């Protein structure tokens, strides 16, 4: 450790080069931390669903609805505590590109089933008691600058016409991965608006006991197997995971990009360390003459390299952590997007590895340096 000062002086010798190398590692690790957070956030989204809730939908596809009569039949099932249903509304708010999820729900049963949505009791009652009331996520409120009590018009796409809603309640999710960008309203309002020409899109079942899930799933799907509308039932968790994989193989894409970034920066850092090594041939020879052991010289060069990459890595990883803290702007697209501590630690480990790999060649060269020849070149 008494040589820390020597390392420090060496780092400051060519300040511009040190700073540039540190910064190139910084941007690389910033990118790494940000990209990895996309993967961890999506994983969290696919984990957020409950194992104690089942989703029953049409076996043909989510866009095909199920008869109202299934409600009673599902509720009569053993191990099923309660049943609710929902429909995708797919309306447009002002412009087609303002996409957000809208669901028509059976309010009483649905809210009872989703304690994840936290809202003040008076707002909850206001939402439940008014037919045209809407329940909106906090993030969505902020995105469009809405306020409680405001009237919103959605242009129907599946259900033609203009639909008026009044925002009566705002929910905050107890887990950010649940998402705070959703819009809920009364199924009854939709039902009347289309003169009863609608049936539930899918059913949600609350189980008494999650371990009963496989048996219940099997029983339900077999019950409707030969009906005109066969069903596909799965746990909510599996259902959500299915939605995430729908976007394609994001994990692979991120890993491919991350690898490219790592190697690009590895080349840059290694190049810098080798340039520094070449410049110091003569003084390393002098150090050796003074009695510095080969091993010590090796460690000195390697440490210098690790200091550079670790410094850069820390700047990048923590920069990303600060920029993407809780409730950042990306949450509108990926619920719960945040740089986790595991990402920070992994990033620092990668920075260290970067330092070792890029420093190893110059460190080896310094160790193997033939003193006489090197000194002759100086003279």
């Amino acid at each position, binding site marked *: 450790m008494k040589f820390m000062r020597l390392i420090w002086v060496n780092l400051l010798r060519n300040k511009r080069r040190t700073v540039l190398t540190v910064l190139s590692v910084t941007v690389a690790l910033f990118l790494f931390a940000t990209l990895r957070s996309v993967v961890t956030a999506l994983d969290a989204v696919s984990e957020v669903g409950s194992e104690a809730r089942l989703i029953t939908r049409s076996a043909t596809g989510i866009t095909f609805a199920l008869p109202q009569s299934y409600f009673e039949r599902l509720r009569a099932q053993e191990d099923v505590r309660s049943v609710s249903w929902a429909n995708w509304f797919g309306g447009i708010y002002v412009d087609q*590109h303002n*996409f957000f999820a809208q669901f028509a729900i059976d309010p009483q049963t649905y809210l009872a089933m989703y304690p994840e949505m936290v809202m003040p009791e008076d707002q909850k009652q206001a939402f439940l008691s008014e037919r045209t009331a809407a329940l909106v996520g906090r993030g969505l409120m902020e995105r469009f600058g809405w306020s409680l009590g405001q009237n919103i018009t959605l242009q129907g796409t599946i259900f033609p016409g203009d639909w008026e809603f009044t925002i009566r309640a705002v929910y905050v999710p107890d887990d950010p991965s649940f998402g705070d960008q959703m819009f809920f309203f009364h199924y009854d309002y939709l039902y009347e608006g289309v003169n009863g020409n609608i049936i539930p899109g899918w059913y949600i079942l609350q189980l008494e006991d999650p371990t009963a899930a496989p048996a219940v799933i099997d029983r339900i799907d077999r019950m409707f197997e030969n009906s005109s509308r066969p069903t596909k039932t799965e746990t909510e968790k599996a259902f959500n995971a299915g939605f995430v994989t729908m976007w394609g193989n994001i994990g692979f894409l991120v890993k491919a990009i991350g690898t490219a970034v790592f190697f690009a920066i590895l080349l*840059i850092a290694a190049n810098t360390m080798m340039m520094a090594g070449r410049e110091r041939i003569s003084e390393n020879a002098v150090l050796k003459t003074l009695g510095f052991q080969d091993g010590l010289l090796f460690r000195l060069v390697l440490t210098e390299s690790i200091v550079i990459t670790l410094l850069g890595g820390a700047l990048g990883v923590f920069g990303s952590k600060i920029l993407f803290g809780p409730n950042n702007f990306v949450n509108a697209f990926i619920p719960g997007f945040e740089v986790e501590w595991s990402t920070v630690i992994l990033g620092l480990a990668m920075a260290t590895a970067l330092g070792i790999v890029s420093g190893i060649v110059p460190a080896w060269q310094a160790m193997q340096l033939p003193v006489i020849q090197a000194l002759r070149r100086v003279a």
Partner: protein
Amino acid sequence: MKIPIVYNLRSLKERPVSTLTTAAGMSLVVAVFVAMMALASGFRAALVKSGSPENALVLRKGANAEMYSGITRSTASTIAGMPFVARGADNGRELRPGASEILVGVKIIDRFANTGLGETLSFGGRDWTVVGHFAADGSAFESEIWAENEQVMPVFRGEVFQSVTFRMTDPSSFDGIKQTLEDDPRLYVDVFRENEFYENQSVILTQILNFIAIFIAGVMAIGAVFGAINTMYAAVSSRAPEIAVLLTLGFKPGHVRSSFLIESVLIALLGGVVGCVLTLPINGLVTSTTNLESLSEVAFAFRVTPSLLVNGLVFAAVMGLVGGFFPALRASRQPVIVTLREA
């Protein structure tokens, strides 16, 4: 007189390790940039190619995707009776009328089970025999399954079509046709030119993909430019005596400056070329995603187009220019006397 480029080429060959590591770093940046853009362009191309400008697509008013639309039989027959609808232009779907038979798009075959010729798929409470595979020039149609609508309608939606497509007798009069149909009180529809409709559906996702490509490549480029600056500064300082000689020989500082800039751009272009070559194998690779605007799966291929490759090279050249700027400036301002004395 300008300093010949041969001088730069030979200098680069003098320090191969430094040149190659810098170029290799840049090649990875260019490769990521081109690959991401190829993803966006492949997605867009799949949707743009879907549909012909000669066809008009009719949806229920307000429904911005086929999934959401419904057109009744009476509306459809009203439209079919209009004078501007061309007749007898069916594209020869070889399905036997009245049979439970389907045609499967080629992009689906490898991705889902039981889609081979002669195999059967089961949906809507019936078994459907796959009697054909169809290709549609890489468009989004290749992610679809086609069956005779008289067979499918009762199974799925009852007496409702999702959309009506017709060939116009005179495609240039589209605006008039649109006006006529949308103003007709018997109908409640929106009319689109078929190709424009599909192109429109690609807007959001293409924008997202392009943004990601530029963000990632931009951040990586910053790192690569820092690396290039280091390399060029090292080149300038190790060749200080050489530069002094050049200046003494009568080359103007401007010449020295452009010579070093050229050298930096040469390194970057080497990286750019390698990066472009690295992306060639992904051309044609099929992947899929879900289109936000139609909520349906679209399979598409990465498209590494010549113009994307040119973009990649331009991107590399810009990195070289930015990275070489200050080192080149330093070279041209070399104090000749001092440098020569030290040498």
